């Protein structure tokens, strides 16, 4: 036990300090609290769905929870099922074999049902495109609020995409606005 405590003390808190207010991420994080209070009134819960990814994007989605990015520190956490989620984070071109599972996950998610497509494949179909086995971009199957390009996008970009989705939905004043 003393080794664990010693290590924790030696490493300290390595979560990166909030960036200057004019930097995109910091601005987003500041907006987020405001957005979440107004739109959700609580912390954001995310369900991840791999709809056909190569698993590269999953590595970076894991990354958002490492001590440097510490997404949970912003009040945003990943949950185990769609019924607990406010947002779906979807990776991959949508494989035909995942199309039904993705639709059913979307249907099981309560409003506001935000969707962020992650990675070049989620945005456009990527290198796999559309074919007999792939439906291509996520928006071909379910509505998407924000799309984060990159192969794979870095954790900071993923977090930015999550924050963007929250503000896009509010600014559009859509039927899903809960205020």
């Amino acid at each position, binding site marked *: 036990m003393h080794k664990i405590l010693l*290590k924790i003390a030696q490493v300290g808190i390595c979560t990166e300090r909030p960036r200057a207010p004019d930097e995109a991420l910091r601005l987003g994080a500041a907006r987020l609290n405001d957005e979440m209070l107004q739109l959700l009134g609580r912390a954001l819960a995310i369900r991840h769905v791999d709809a056909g990814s190569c698993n590269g994007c999953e590595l970076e989605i894991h990354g958002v929870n*490492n001590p440097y990015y510490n997404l949970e520190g912003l009040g945003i956490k990943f949950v185990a099922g769609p019924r607990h989620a406010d947002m779906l984070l979807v990776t991959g071109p949508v*494989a035909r074999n995942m199309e039904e599972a993705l639709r059913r996950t979307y249907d099981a998610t309560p409003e506001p049902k935000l969707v962020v497509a992650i990675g070049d494949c989620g945005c456009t179909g990527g290198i796999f495109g559309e074919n007999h086995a792939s439906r291509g971009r996520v928006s071909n199957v379910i509505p998407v609020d924000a799309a984060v390009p990159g192969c794979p996008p870095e954790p900071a970009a993923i977090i930015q995409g999550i924050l963007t989705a929250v503000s896009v939905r509010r600014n559009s004043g859509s039927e899903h606005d809960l205020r």
Partner: protein
Amino acid sequence: MRREFFDAHAWRATCEAHAGDGGRLGALWASDGPAVHALLITKEGSLSCASLALSGPEFPDVSDLFPAAARMQRAAADLYGVRAGADTRGWLRHDAPYAFVRVEGEGVHEIPVGPVHAGIIEPGHFRFSVVGERVLRLEERLGYTHKGIEKRFEEMSLEEGVRLAGRVSGDSTVAFAWAYSMALEEAAGVRVPPRALWLRALLLERERVANHLGDLGAIGNDGGLAFGLAQFSRLKEDWLRISARLFGHRYLMDRVVPGGVACDLQRAGVEELLEEAGRLEAELRTLRAIYYDHAGLQDRCINCGVLAPRTAAALGVVGLAARASGIAMDARVFPGFAPYGELQPKIACHRNGDVASRIVVRFEELFESLNLVRRIVDSLPSGDAGIPLPQAAEGSFGVGWIEGWRGEVFVALEAGANGRVRRCHPHDPSWQNWPALEHAVIGNIVPDFPLINKSFNLSYAGVDL
């Protein structure tokens, strides 16, 4: 590499003779024609391709000789309509209801899990038959991420194909890109310069370290030690950032290209890598002591998810999982591929086959990879990091064979006309190892499944293609 065509009888006889001599199956796939191809590896480590041109839709079943062939045969049936064996259920095609094997008896019930799982992981379906908490049987159904990769290759030029190969299983992008490049270089009949090979090895070891760091953290977390996840994910992030700074990509995608590598290493980079290796090694020694001393974690991991050496051998398990079950196989060492002959890596091996053994193997491979990184940067040959590749002739064929972090990766590549891909089959070691997970979980309790699964950490995308 030797490639021979046989008729059905002789093809089956070749496979039988091969299995009888202690050989194993690397990969099995079909192509237009139709034809079926088996990559065979002898006990002495020599590789050959036995091909069979078919006149009808049936080919001889070899799953009695090589159990891992069963799912490869089903994939061939779905992609090319050529059948073998009694199991006619679709593997990659999901258009018909799927009949899981029913376990019956008093108190037996089923737990269906997936394809959408509870964590941040790839999709697949697991059907557990349990009594109380105890697992009697696990049946996997995969194929959910099938996205037509093998057909997609056929729309690409030979040079473009490496980008797709690097996205068969993103966590093994270096291994697949190298295997693809090795196959294409064999088809084109060229040798790449030594500096390119050494840099490829450096990238491959970086990929191994990144994945082992991630897995050790995740295994600790699944074993109830969240401290482990925090520490290892911090170390992994440090590692990825240095990869991005020195080589241009956190996961090293598109760094290995046919003819060489698309990056180089300067003197300042060498210093940084040596400094990084020293720092990480010190951290790992501390964390290893904590993992090995932690009673709660050891209690979860020892004797959990045992893959007995005999079972592993019978199933033809490969890579890290094989090494944790007493099978000392590592393609870097035997038969070896350049530049590993000069680097002389040590094989990490353990006999118990449980989750704890797979942790031990990962730790030992981390230390060995750091040693290899030091050796590589200390004596990196000078010269070019790549050469222009001549066009591979139509019909030329090559196979790449690389020991990735998970196990051996193959890419079989046949060139078409005008520098196009005629047929490319990428093979992930998870083909061999997924069936072993079904065995390792028997008799364990359901809550230990995530821990057991993570200790193997097999690829879904890599086998769904």
